[in-house]
């Protein structure tokens, strides 16, 4: 399965290129860099000062052309109508997903910036959302990358890997093993 990564232009290109080679190595999918997302204004919610994750998904869906899947990478705070914030959101078994670096960055928690840690977290979240696109729901295994993360601590706890059950599910649906 091919997955196109579409970052916003404000995300450092060096961050993205490192990311892609790593992701290919540790996940069952192959990632390529797509055109940047131009504009997020349509998804901005002035009342909340945040961006509507579903609004961004709709935008990505409208711009999709071939049969592939797309994950948007953005750097602003995401939310949904019912949740106070989200790290990411995806169509279950669908074609588009989005991940935000906003709350993955140590600076959000008033901690010393740590670029290495940020990349690590971002990779986990991208693989996690890709898992949703592959049809996986959240997993109860705390170490599995498909575990739902309510806070940044959960993200740091889990690994990059799928647990055997999740991996099995993906294989049965034709995703190649890593």
């Amino acid at each position, binding site marked *: 399965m091919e997955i196109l990564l579409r970052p916003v232009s404000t995300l450092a290109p060096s961050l993205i290129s490192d990311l892609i080679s790593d992701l290919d190595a540790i996940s069952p999918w192959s990632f390529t860099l797509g055109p940047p997302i131009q504009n997020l204004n349509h998804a901005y919610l002035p009342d909340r000062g945040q961006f509507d994750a579903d609004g961004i998904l709709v935008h990505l869906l409208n711009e999709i052309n071939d049969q592939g899947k797309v994950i948007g990478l953005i750097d602003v705070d995401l939310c949904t109508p019912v949740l106070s914030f989200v790290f990411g959101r995806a169509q279950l078994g669908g074609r588009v997903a989005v991940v935000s670096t906003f709350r993955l960055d140590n600076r959000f928690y008033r901690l010393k910036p740590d670029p290495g840690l940020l990349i690590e977290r971002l990779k986990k979240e991208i693989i996690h959302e890709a898992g949703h696109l592959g049809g996986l729901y959240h997993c109860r295994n705390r170490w599995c990358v498909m575990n739902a993360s*309510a806070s940044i601590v959960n993200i740091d706890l889990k690994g990059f890997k799928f647990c055997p059950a999740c991996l099995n599910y993906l294989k049965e649906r034709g995703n190649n093993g890593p």
Partner: protein
Amino acid sequence: MSCPFLEEVVVRYCNAYPVKKLIPASDYERTGICHGNFQECPIYKEWQSAIGEREDKMEEKLCIWAKLGVVSYRVCTQNYNCASCEFDQMMRSGRYGESALILQAMEKLKSLPADQRVCRYMLSGDISYKICSNNYECWHCEVDQMIQDRMEYHPAYRRRKRLYQQIKGIRLAPARAYTANHLWILKTGKDKVRVGIDDLAQSLLGSIRNFEFQNRRLMIETEKGKVMIPTNISGDRIEVNQVTKDQPEKINRDPYWNWLAEIRNPRYEVNLIEWEKAEEWLKKELEALEEFSRDEIGVAVSDGGKFSKSLLAQLDRQSWHRMVVRFLKGGEDN
């Protein structure tokens, strides 16, 4: 050998009396050791009252929970410092469930003589001493009001709020059974239950203005309009909680303490979700809530965040209506 003039006598004396007055054994048989009425003896009297006190103290040393008959026997080793007592915390937390226990204790208290009917907040260590003069009708008592107000903001009381489990920002109260459409039921007597709405329902409905039970349905009037929720419960008598009726905003503050009605001999037309299964059930409900998304997207899943009252109640009209139908199995009442 001994002198023949020496007479040998067996004597007794009173252990308590300061002067050891010897009394020949022959006299003792006749008059008693103290030559008088021992009940009148000051030393005896003092001793007697000391024993009495000791016995009283033993009685007092019984754990409050044992006195109330909630546990069968327990002696207090903490000098009634219940606020820092682990046993007390255990009794009021987790699987025992605070409310049911306190309610049970209150039932016992009601049957005691007036001067022993201590305020329920003594049991929880919130106040040091108070006799209830209000027949345990806490819902219109200023003591209750004061404590509840303090709980809102005082750090020492916030701790107790944790007695409610929180799942992604939605509170779940112990000891209750729940219905699939987010009502709770708490047994408060042999044939009595209290009914209320849970925190998810409260968050979704937003500011509650009024409510009314109408023939197995519950009408709730909110900032968004009127909603009809099926209760699927009938009973011999449904008595509305006048306090929440008069101050419905209390339901939003704490939907578990502020019940809506008391029902006698309840009969259920639906299966209840027992407390042991409630957490699992609520988690599933919240997952379903997270999946709610715009029509174009279909089912979507997200990572992170908490639900909040303000968010749910502020949904646009159409999504809000969909949620009321899905989660409360209700409809709008025009």
